[in-house]
């Protein structure tokens, strides 16, 4: 929670006294936004978990175990790692990304334009920044929930090779936020949901398939590889996989974390601008 609201406070740059008051109010009222989301969630959490977890679980079975049979017969994943252990941490990160990307698109659009939940909230002392902070926390909360549950599934499959694997959970949450923040910024600029289909077709799905989830990006044509380096998912997957396999490379891992954090910070910064422009005019 602190991680998500901290980058917001410094960009509010009115007079110092007012800033103190505002950030106090922000922290407080964004919690109320989160509280509202949680109340709504109480009704639909089972089906949310089901649809969030069923896809990565089925991929784990099909790819990790079924296809894994053939990959392992052929020498396994790079370094001779069993294929299941290779893709399990990657799926943990991609499921968090998928859920967060979805949550940042249609549901946020609905709150802005369709059900206009935000407009109702703005009639109270809650401001646009609080709404943003509240819903980012909300997305983070669910990313934690899904990731912990999926991690338990992976453990049950015996698909982790190191105690460090538990660090894949915060990595998944950080990756989720590195998508949520920029997508929310984008959502706030959209009049209709038409562009979301494009975002998923040409953004999220290709990332899922080409960011090193199922095979090392070194297998991609040379000219495409740099593309993978600039997307957050590649960094999330590499980081989580390193922890899960117990292969820590401090320099590379720091770069991965820096890229992910960069996406979160810049995303939130832009989102704050687009949110205020959309809601506080």
């Amino acid at each position: 929670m602190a991680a998500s609201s901290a980058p917001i406070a410094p960009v509010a740059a009115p007079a110092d006294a007012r800033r103190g008051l505002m950030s106090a109010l922000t922290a407080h009222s964004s919690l109320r936004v989160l509280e509202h989301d949680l109340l709504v969630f109480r009704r639909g959490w089972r089906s949310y978990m089901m649809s969030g977890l069923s896809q990565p679980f089925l991929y784990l079975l099909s790819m990790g175990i079924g296809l894994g049979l053939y990959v392992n017969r052929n020498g396994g994943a790079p370094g001779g790692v069993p294929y299941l252990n290779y893709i399990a941490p990657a799926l943990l990160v991609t499921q968090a990304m998928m859920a967060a990307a979805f949550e940042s698109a249609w549901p946020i659009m609905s709150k802005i334009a369709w059900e206009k939940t935000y407009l109702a909230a703005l009639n109270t002392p809650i401001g646009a920044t609080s709404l943003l902070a509240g819903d980012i926390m909300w997305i983070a909360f669910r990313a934690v929930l899904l990731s912990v549950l999926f991690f338990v599934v992976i453990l049950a499959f015996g698909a982790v090779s190191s105690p460090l694997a538990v660090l894949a959970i915060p990595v998944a949450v950080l990756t989720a936020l590195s998508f949520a923040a920029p997508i929310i910024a984008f959502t706030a600029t959209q009049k209709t949901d038409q562009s979301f289909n494009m975002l998923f077709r040409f953004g999220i799905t290709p990332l899922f398939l080409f960011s090193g989830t199922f095979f090392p990006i070194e297998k991609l044509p040379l000219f495409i590889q740099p593309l993978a380096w600039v997307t957050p998912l590649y960094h999330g997957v590499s980081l989580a996989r390193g922890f899960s396999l117990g292969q820590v490379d401090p320099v590379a891992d720091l770069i991965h974390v820096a890229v992910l954090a960069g996406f979160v910070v810049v995303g939130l910064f832009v989102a704050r601008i687009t949110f205020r422009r959309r809601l506080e005019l």
Partner: protein
Amino acid sequence: MLALRLSVPSTLTRPTRMVERNLLVYRRTFMVIFSGFFEPLFYLFSMGFGVGALVGAVQLENGSTVAYAVFVAPALLASSAMNGAIYETSNNFFFKLKYAKLYDAIIATPMSLRDVARGEILWALLRGSLYVVGFLVVIAVLGIAGLGLISSPLGILAFPAAMVVGFAFAGAGMAATTFVRKWQDFDFLQLAIMPMFLFSGTFYPISAYPPALQVFVQCTPLYRGVHLIRALTTGNPDVWIAVDVAYLMAMGLIGLWIVGKRLNKLLLA
């Protein structure tokens, strides 16, 4: 009375009016249709070539071995035909049926509900055929580039075969949708589609399963579609492809029959 210049349009041409209506709608959102063409290609490159490099060669049912991409390409074609048909007949059809009340207005004209159902399935197939043709063209181009994914002249039959797969899932999907009451119910549909996509011998031979499970998978529709198209593109047709075609056609026709019954019940009270 006013001139009665109108004759009742023939049963054959009436379903095409639905297609005309949908074409008008999609003229504006052309990109939505066009973009659907890329998804199977993304999977083809990711699975066929990326994962393929890890898998190496795969053994077909008749004992011959082929590159993984050759194995997975026909399966992705079948899955794409399934997904296209399901998408059009689930969410889109449900929206028109329950929210837009589109068909309530149409049945006041000489169009019958049977015309509506046939027209919508025809539309789903036409839309699906775009993707199938696109996919096959890309495969052909890869073939010219030396990455032959189709190893038999029979591969040309993959097009009608994919249409049969599309018909089966369009009919069944539409039938399922007539029982749907709220959007969340589609989660259950996904719960059927997703496992089929992942476990129907799409990404690895079903010989990986214990015998009982193999028999079960062989009874599922996507397995039959994958088997049919793979038999054609790899040049290994056996008698089972007759079973595939019969199974899929029956599935589509039974679906269509249920749709007729259900729409009558829902709209002609």
